[in-house]
């Protein structure tokens, strides 16, 4: 079980690094898919089967499909990627290096996390997840659904075509609006 954890953890870390280092955006997306699948594997190791499956359905099955969809439609490739200026690159390296230094300083003496409660293998099962969602965390659960509803309404608003008045096409000599038949004939 421990070796399985190390294997899945290694896959997660390597695929996450590939996401940011891959040159081709499609490879990046595939690495992210792999990363999400390995995270689902971690959930399974913790006996949280419900979370694992929902994670795969939502992230791998829906969100990443849309990512891939957009990248395929835009046909992004290395040539189309804008080149960063020297200043941006230097700033990126500096800030990244400083963040790494901070992390290193914080973790220099090692960290030990003690679990607040003993691990309960039943905590991730459908029954217990449902019970806590619909009793203890009912209010946040319902409020998050309002958030989703507002997102949906927003999308419908944005996607809706606005009706605008366009002047009719007129005949150049008689100034009369063209009929549909004449419009078709003009192409």
């Amino acid at each position: 079980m421990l070796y399985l954890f190390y294997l899945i953890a290694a896959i997660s870390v390597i695929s996450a690094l590939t996401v940011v280092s891959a040159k081709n955006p499609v490879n990046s997306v595939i690495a992210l898919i792999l990363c999400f699948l390995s995270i689902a594997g971690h959930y399974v190791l913790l006996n949280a089967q419900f979370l694992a499956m929902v994670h795969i359905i939502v992230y791998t099955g829906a969100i990443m499909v849309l990512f891939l969809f957009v990248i395929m439609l835009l046909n992004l490739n290395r040539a189309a990627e804008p080149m960063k200026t020297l200043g941006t690159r230097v700033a990126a390296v500096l800030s990244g290096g400083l963040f790494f230094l901070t992390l290193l300083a914080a973790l220099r003496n090692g960290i030990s996390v003690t679990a607040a409660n003993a691990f309960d293998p039943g905590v991730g099962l459908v029954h217990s997840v449902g019970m806590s969602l619909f009793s203890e965390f009912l209010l946040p659960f319902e409020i998050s659904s309002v958030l989703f509803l507002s997102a949906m309404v927003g999308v419908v608003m944005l996607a809706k075509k606005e009706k605008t008045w366009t002047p009719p096409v007129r005949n150049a000599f008689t100034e009369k609006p063209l009929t549909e038949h004449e419009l078709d004939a003009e192409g």
Partner: protein
Amino acid sequence: MMITATFLLVLFVVTLTVAAYSTYGERKVAAFLQDRIGPNRAGPFGLLQPLADGAKMFMKEDFVPATANRKLFFMGPAIAMITALLTGVVIPWGGTLTIGEHTFDLQGTDPEIGILYVFAMVSIGVYGIMLGGWASNNKFALLGAIRAASQMVSYELAMGLSIVGLVMMTGTLSLSGIVEYQAAHGWGIIQQPLGFLIFIVCAFAECNRAPFDMPECETELVGGYHTEFSSMKLGFYLFAEYINMFMSSAVIATLYFGGYHVPGLASLGLDPNLVTIIGVAAMFAKTFFFIFFFMWVRWSIPRFRFDQLMNLGWKRLIPLAILNIVVTGGLYYIINGF
């Protein structure tokens, strides 16, 4: 451990055999519906036709276009095949067999989220088509891949919502739990007729079967997402479609037609092993009926247009599925109380 491994191996072989003979069945059903004879040269009644087709697929040149992305071109058919095969693991093919002191479950594994696992595999399956279509570097293949992706994502929603009513009644997500509930309280088709209708329409769309086979619509897109594929890579795509059809037929039989349950069999007082074997036969009979149904529809109904498909999915099926949930909840409250 060994028993599970053996069971999975048997399941693998059975799945491939059923898928192979589905191709033969498809041609025979098409011939029957069009008043023809169909394949009848290879072996008696053309029964060796799938083997001949398989041999042909393996012998053909495996051509990769020069501009294709070779890695993804290889991965596409592999993902399609693997995810198609993985679904069968959670489907309960029968009850338990008792041989000597050992009991064997005729189900690969019974996780408590069985039906969600099926949905997860279906949702990963779309990558096989998307990556294969994109990697071909061909506009027809790309259009097919994009159609497949938008179609499958749209119909996954309605499919997920359509089973919520059933899950509310059975109170479990485990597929064997759902079968046991149906054995005790009557089949799902009687309790959830609307849910069944939505589910089966979505199953057609998820399998890319006619009348929703826009991703490989040959009149518009040459061959759709598999235009550039040849040899066994093409074979894997076609085969994965038949495996998907077999698996979705099995899931329909499990969710709405009692799975391996045969009404009135338990009251006859037969030997439990015999009951299980009859149950497995019943499960396969139901599954084969739905495979036939898939073919029947394919050769009877013309293909939809893509905008009609999207309208049906988003504006008809999803509201209907939500209505089904509300009605089920209301009736459940009236009949059972809290």
